[in-house]
């Protein structure tokens, strides 16, 4: 799905992202873990061609991401509010994203119905613009809009951090189910090693822009992470 060669991004002489090689397969759920400033968000922006790399390249399905647009048709992401159109109501936003992906209003409505539980009655039919929602609810809107397009590659930055406990657990279930049903490739970054080890099939530990450990998911993953983070 994704293959990275010699990717480097630095600001003012400091390497923020520095990845030699990395291969990610379809159907994998990648948990990206690291302390603040490890370069997770910068890495995501590089994946979406929102930042230009200093060296190296990212291939998505075999073609270069930077400067091309094919990847947009099967990639969805939610990094922060910069992905929401703040002066639309959530419904308008969903229809908008749907339309860009050739989904009719009815399709979108059907989709929203299946995720009613996730919304917890706090989003739809509120007659408010997105900018007037709380940060947690904005996150829900962003995540649902990303899922709406049925992407093959889904990128979520810190999805657990801004959600309430119930929604966090629901999200864990959703991610697992989608990856299994549709063989999606999902990349999630998080500080919450608990949730990450529960969801991920593979965990990448990031430090100072480098991927220092590549751990297979499962029970040992949690202990290995605790081990790593305890030292510092």
């Amino acid at each position, binding site marked *: 799905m994704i293959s990275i060669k010699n990717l480097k991004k630095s600001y003012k002489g400091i390497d923020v992202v520095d990845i030699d090689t990395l291969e990610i397969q379809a159907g994998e759920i990648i948990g990206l873990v690291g302390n603040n400033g490890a370069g997770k968000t910068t890495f995501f922006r590089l994946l979406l061609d929102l930042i230009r790399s200093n060296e190296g390249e990212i291939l998505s399905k075999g073609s270069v991401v930077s400067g091309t647009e094919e990847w*947009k048709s099967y990639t969805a992401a939610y990094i922060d509010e910069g992905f929401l*159109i703040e002066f639309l109501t959530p419904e308008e936003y969903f229809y908008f994203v749907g339309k860009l992906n050739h989904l009719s209003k009815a399709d979108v409505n059907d989709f929203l119905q299946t995720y009613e539980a996730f919304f917890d009655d706090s989003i739809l039919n509120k007659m408010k613009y997105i900018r007037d929602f709380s940060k947690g609810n904005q996150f829900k809107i962003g995540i649902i809009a990303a899922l709406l397009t049925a992407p093959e590659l889904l990128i979520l930055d810190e999805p657990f951090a801004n959600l309430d406990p119930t929604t966090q657990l629901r999200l864990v279930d959703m991610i697992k189910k989608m990856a299994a049903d549709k063989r999606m490739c999902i990349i999630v970054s998080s500080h919450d090693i608990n949730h990450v080890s529960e969801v991920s099939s593979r965990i990448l530990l990031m430090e100072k822009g480098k991927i220092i450990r590549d751990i297979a998911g499962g029970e040992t993953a949690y202990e290995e992470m605790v081990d790593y983070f305890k030292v510092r």
Partner: protein
Amino acid sequence: MYIKRKSINSSWWFFGIIIIITILKGFEYLKIISFEKASSVIFTAILHHPWLCIIPVVLSVITFMVNNRYLRNHLYIEELVSERKLKISSNYRFLDKYGEIGEMISLDLKLIFRNKRPRSLMILSGVILLYGLLFYPQYLKTESYTTLFIFALLIVGIFISNYGQFLFAWQSSHFDGIMSYNFNMKQYIKAKFLLFVTVCTLQFLIAGFYGLMGWRILPIQLAAFLYSIGVNSFATIYAATFNYKYLDLRKSASMNFQGIGAVQWVQSLLIMFGPALVFYLLNRFFGFWAAIVSISVLGMAGIAFHDLIIGWLVRQFNIRKHKILEGFRER
């Protein structure tokens, strides 16, 4: 002061006052009611009867009291965030059949009507439509066609240069999203161009009524219209790819210079006076029709080759894409 407070709360006040002044000027011009005479009557009366001085003093005291009360009543910030209106999802049906491009245009329209700053610009474009009432008659009389042409450019094309100078910056708060949604840049730029065409055509049709003042207005406005669409719109989009500044949509537009740099000033000057100079020279040496036809042909050439030009604009945009994104992320 009172008016300033009020006009911060709603831009309608600001434009209302401009319209009133315009109308009063119009009356003055048409000699229906002359305010110059009225004010001279008032001042001579004061000169003859000094005790009348008391009236302006009383008036200013009243103004002070009104102002004072207004400020007192609006001292607390929570009260300023006044009644919450329910926001209704809406949809521009007529744009539905144009697919993704229609969707992009309807997004732009919502951006304009739901946010203070672009909305004021839209209203301003409407107010400027009235300029013809004020300025056309006198320059028609003196047959200064170049000046008429400048006003026609302003009347027909103000939206393009006003909205267009921040073309991408309007979306700066969600530009990361715009750059990763599923549509290609060519559609994106084309949607912007079509928005220009739509609004400009509307302005042109309304301004058509000025033809009643003198038939020469019509060819002048037609040339200005074709030029605005065929040349100015592309020039504005090109210039917008150099605008890296974040812009807050919710702040008011009047007297707001956020996101405006030297580049924008030079740009708006060039856009207005570049074609005017060409028009002047042609009109001077080859006559009225030579000027009209040349400017129109320039515009029509731009319209005919819009696909090629948009392709080039997309390449220009892509060169600076990351710089724009980076600039918009700095708030």
